[in-house]
């Protein structure tokens, strides 16, 4: 299969001004400014196949967005080679722009006072789509993304979930071959998140769009991607299939329970008590060995006031991967 993205030994450094404490530090910074070099991305290499949905994940400041920005031509690398659909983003940014779409979850690209329809026509014109073609594309995407109900409502009056759907459609209007989604589900409630995931999957299937996704949300990754790259401190920590990641790292769930009365509970195979503060208990369940139901039974549902089941935080998984690699 052809490669949509090729990255080899990519690095990016930022120079950040540093300033001493207080007034003295501020004055000193004027006379003798000092800068600190931050290595945002360090010597990373990977490839993405056409039509693949890949998750590019990591904690805050890991280098995810910096990498996306280098792949889309927004930032210039200090070192290394990048090729997206055969284009060099640094020197062929405009040509590449016609072939890719971007959604930055924290950056709106829609015009708030215009309706989604007018916005889409606007983006159609920006990407040199003839008016008739833009219109038929809007109809097609509105159908897929279920926008017909609010396509003529000004964007400012839409809910966050509807807006994100429109953001994605706006970035798909020109039939991009690669779509970069940077935290597309940030700030959305679980129901809307799930809708967006379904739509992303549908889009990948129907248009064979390569999707490069960054997210903090383990759910996004689990449900969408077959391959995961984990980045931390600007370096790739893991590049593996979702199946392996799930088996080795996402198999554990946290069960937090608030009890009516104190209960005696001890570690069991596949269930570890990680916090026992009398009425508040926290268990870690290895779902490869035991089910969540086993853990709930162990806690005694009759004595339970409240329960919360969650994934192990991404940061913890990354730490664990590091420890494994180190040992």
């Amino acid at each position, binding site marked *: 299969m052809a490669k949509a993205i090729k990255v080899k030994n990519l690095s990016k450094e930022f120079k950040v001004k540093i300033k001493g404490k207080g007034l003295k530090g501020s004055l000193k910074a004027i006379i003798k400014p000092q800068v600190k070099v931050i290595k945002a991305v360090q010597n990373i290499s990977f490839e993405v196949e056409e039509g693949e949905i890949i998750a590019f994940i990591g904690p805050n400041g890991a280098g995810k967005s910096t990498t996306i920005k280098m792949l889309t031509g927004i930032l210039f690398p200090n070192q290394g080679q990048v090729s997206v659909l055969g284009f060099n983003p640094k020197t062929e940014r405009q040509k590449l722009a016609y072939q890719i779409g971007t959604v930055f979850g924290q950056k709106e690209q829609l*015009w708030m*006072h215009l309706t989604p329809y007018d916005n889409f026509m606007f983006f159609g014109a920006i990407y040199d789509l003839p008016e008739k073609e833009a219109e038929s594309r809007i109809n097609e995407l509105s159908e897929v993304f279920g926008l017909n109900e609010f396509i003529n409502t000004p964007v400012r009056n839409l809910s966050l979930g509807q807006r994100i759907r429109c953001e994605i459609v706006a970035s798909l209007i020109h039939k991009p071959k690669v779509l970069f989604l940077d935290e597309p589900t940030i700030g959305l409630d679980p129901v809307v998140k799930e809708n967006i995931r379904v739509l992303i999957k549908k889009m990948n299937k129907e248009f064979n769009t390569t999707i490069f996704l960054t997210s903090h949300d383990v759910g996004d990754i689990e449900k969408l991607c077959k391959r995961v790259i984990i980045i931390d401190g600007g370096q790739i920590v893991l590049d593996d299939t979702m199946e392996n990641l799930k088996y080795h790292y996402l198999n554990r769930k946290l069960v937090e329970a608030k009890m009516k009365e104190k209960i005696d509970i001890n570690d069991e195979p596949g269930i570890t008590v990680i916090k026992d503060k009398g009425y508040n208990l926290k268990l870690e369940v290895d779902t490869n060995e035991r089910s969540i139901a086993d853990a709930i039974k162990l806690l005694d549902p009759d004595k339970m006031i409240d329960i919360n089941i969650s994934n192990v935080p991404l940061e913890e998984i990354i730490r664990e991967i590091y420890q494994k690699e180190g040992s």
Partner: protein
Amino acid sequence: MRKYYYIFKANIMSNLQYIFNIMISFINYFILIFIYLNVWQYIYSDPSKLIYHYSVQQMVWYVIITEMLWFATSGRILCQNISNDVRSGNIAYNMNKPYSYIGYVLANHLGEILVSGLLYGTAGLIMGLILLGGIPTLSLAYIPFILIVIIFSVIINTMLITVVGLISFWIEDSSPFYWLYSKLLLVFGVFFPIEFFPKYLQGFLQYSPVYVTIYGPAKLFVDFSYVNLFKIISVQTLYLVIAYLGCQYMYERGVRKLNVNGG
């Protein structure tokens, strides 16, 4: 060009939401013109008197036009937005779209000021006709030329403000530079025509932004001549080229030092 037309159109559509706000800002404009009318009528005392070849009627029309340009095409927000975009790194998000940033800013700003320009233009003309009775020496045949000069003046002003805004790539805040630029226009172009200043200053002002953005259109409106038209359009053309190249140069140099925060 179609994409720039769409950017322009999208901004007009967005700004139609603010018609009421624009009309509220007319109050300032009306008050200022009323003050000028009284000041100039007092200074002239004899209506047949000429000061630097301007009659009282021409003088008040001059201020009506310059104040209209000043209010309708104010670039304070444009400069602030560019400056904020540079500092926050948001300017980078325009880079992965298939258009020129300068073209985008220009189409965007022109769309933004078109609605206010038309409203201020209409209000200014009505007010002038009511207060002064007529427009001196203006014939219908001159209007297309004056409109071209006004369009050029607005484009040049937008590009010069863009240059000022892009200074933020090198210094934290470009607003002091905008303050200087706007005060240059205000003091040497909006309040008085260039002829009112000492000869040594006139030489400088005739090649300054004041001449091409404020004085030129107003001068042609109150005292049209083909000689003046040719001179103003020539200097404007020179400014269009210089301002465009300046914008491109600043932008190209600036984005190379862009630091966008990672996620």
